[in-house]
């Protein structure tokens, strides 16, 4: 079967992690790579693509690629994506494939958290944290560091608690003060960790789900879904069972790959994917000012080996359009 290696890529460049998946044309996930962005998204993409190329072997043929996450424009430009979508849509698409009857998606990532409501098979409402990050993965990361417990084991500690201690969760920094206070009162680590998990869940629900009805089935995904303590706290608070998909950590990237499949099927056009050689190229970003009108928008320009590949950040959408055309035209001059 020579079609077996026709694959579609999804790349999700987030604040904390960069995830890449490869799926076949039916949407089955074949390979997934999860690595930390560490403030260097281009390097993370290149490293991820390198690992993916090794895992897939030489006869893999990429038929489409999609990008999502806060670094989606950059990712789209570096890999040559056919679709660029925000992470809310990408997450919903992936979850709906795995559990078509899903009504509520809880997603907690590194620096943002979202809740997505689905009705009659389409996203009908969503919310994302705005002015506060107290209900996100970074909140837990900090606390784990403070308690000297590896984040991977955090959830298991929480499950050992007999009774959680209540921790003030409004602000991530004050939660830390409160946590220290509770330590000084003599509470043990599991009780405190369990309290932190419940504080995060309380914060998440008040920030994002206020006034909205959380309907079953509920799916919990994003990097934080690895934390059994949080999942348990959600079940306790919502009084319902929660499903965690097996690929919970790469759902955004998976969704991007699914969107790429859909896009290529609809358009029937060949992919804009640049190929795995992109890992050897050298990329530079700089800011330039557009002089076409008095708005003087500040643009982000990305160049590779001296050639301008994309510009974005302008108010009028002219550059976004030009960049997409550039990618679609097989990268002829902008």
């Amino acid at each position, binding site marked *: 079967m020579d079609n077996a290696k026709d694959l579609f890529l999804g790349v999700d460049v987030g604040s904390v992690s960069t995830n890449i998946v490869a799926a076949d044309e039916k949407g089955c996930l074949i390979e997934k790579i999860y690595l930390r962005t560490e403030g260097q998204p281009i390097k993370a993409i290149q490293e991820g693509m390198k690992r993916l190329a090794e895992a897939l072997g030489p006869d893999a043929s990429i038929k489409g690629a999609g990008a999502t996450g806060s670094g989606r424009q950059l990712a789209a430009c570096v890999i040559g994506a056919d679709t660029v979508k*925000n992470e*809310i849509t990408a997450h919903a698409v992936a979850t709906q494939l795995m559990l078509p009857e899903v009504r509520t998606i809880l997603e907690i990532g590194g620096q943002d958290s979202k809740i997505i409501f689905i009705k009659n098979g389409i996203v009908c409402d969503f919310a994302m944290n705005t002015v506060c990050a107290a209900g996100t993965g970074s909140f837990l990361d900090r606390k784990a560091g403070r308690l000297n417990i590896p984040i991977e084991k955090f959830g298991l500690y929480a499950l050992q608690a007999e009774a959680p201690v209540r921790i003030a969760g409004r602000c991530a920094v004050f939660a830390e003060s409160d946590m220290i206070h509770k330590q000084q009162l003599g509470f043990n680590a599991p009780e405190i960790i369990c309290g932190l998990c419940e504080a995060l869940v309380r914060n998440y629900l008040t920030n994002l789900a*206020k*006034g909205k009805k959380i309907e079953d089935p509920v799916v919990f995904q994003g990097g934080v879904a690895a934390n059994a303590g949080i999942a348990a706290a959600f079940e306790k608070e919502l009084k319902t069972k929660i499903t965690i998909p097996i690929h919970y950590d790469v759902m955004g990237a998976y969704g991007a790959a699914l969107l790429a499949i859909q896009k290529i099927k609809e358009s029937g056009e060949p992919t804009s994917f640049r190929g795995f050689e992109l890992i050897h190229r050298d990329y530079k970003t700089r800011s330039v000012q557009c002089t076409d009108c008095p708005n003087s928008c500040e643009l982000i320009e990305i160049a590779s080996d001296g050639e301008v590949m994309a510009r974005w950040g302008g*108010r009028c959408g*002219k550059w976004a359009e030009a960049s997409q055309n550039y990618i679609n035209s097989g990268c002829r001059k902008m």
Partner: protein
Amino acid sequence: MILTFPHMGNTYITAKVLLDELGVSYVIPPLDNQEALSIGARYAPELACLPLKINLGNYIKAYEQGADTILITGGCGPCRFGYYSEIEQGILRDLGIKMDVIALEKPDAGLLELMRRIYRLSGYEKNVNRVIGAVKKAARISALVDELERQTFRTRPRETAKGSTDRIYSAFRENVLNAKGYDGIKKLIGETSEKLSAIKVNRNQTPLKIGIVGEIYTTIDSATSFNLDIKLGNLGVEVDRAVTVSGWIIDHMFKKALRLPYDTGYVDAAKPYLKTMIGGHAQETVGHSAQYADRGFDGIIQIYPLSCMPEIVAQSVLPGLSRDKDIPVMTLIIDEMSGEAGYMTRIEAFLDVLDRRRERSIG
């Protein structure tokens, strides 16, 4: 006396006409409200609402250019805006900046007090007809500018060459500073409108329609809300904003003051959800949302500055309206600490929701 006034979207054009016609000397603070915000944030209390911070930045920039008196419209509504003039004067005084404030509002003392303030504004010009004429002309221009803006809302999503509307409209906002008086500005508006009409558009397009509601400053002052109205337009969305500068001047200031009848449709529309005026523009937010839903809009975006009490109440009312009328509502809260990228993600996702809903209802 050299006057100045705070920015709020295109109000500077209206204010310019009024002052040109009265023959008063004035300076207009630089259009860049982002810089004004950083200056204002330095001196305002942290929890003061965002418009106050921008106002302060405007005054300080204008003071550097020689202004000594501030002209503002007052808010009689029970929200913090009503205290702006007092607080702003206090902060400026503490900074050692000597500026007078003239608040144009319908004071409790009645219309005579308002007239006295306008007299003071015009250097005690005793020609009542000239003063009334200037006010009328300013009101007329504000209506024309709002209509021009509505024209950009229609053109932007339909233009075939991206950026055409923006180029004409932002040039207008710059050039209007050099136009003089009612006649000059009216002429420029007319020319700009013709240029906008000449933009090539795709007539077969049926763009998504989004109603923008919320606190008046952040909705009207495009730059403060990351040019949300412009961005939506460029993403192919036709926006509408029921609260306008001219509406504020004509309905809120004149008609209310003169006890003339004015459009209260939004009051009735808000009734099932919010029965009374609770301050700020909360009643408008709820009422206009209901009206947009009834007019078949695809979605509603509510914008307000962090900690705006009336809009917080409106926000908690909107989910019920959204359920009853089956229309998606998204709230964006503006704060000087917030970053643009996060807003764009939400906006894109919201448009996806609206797109899918529309496909569903057609297919």
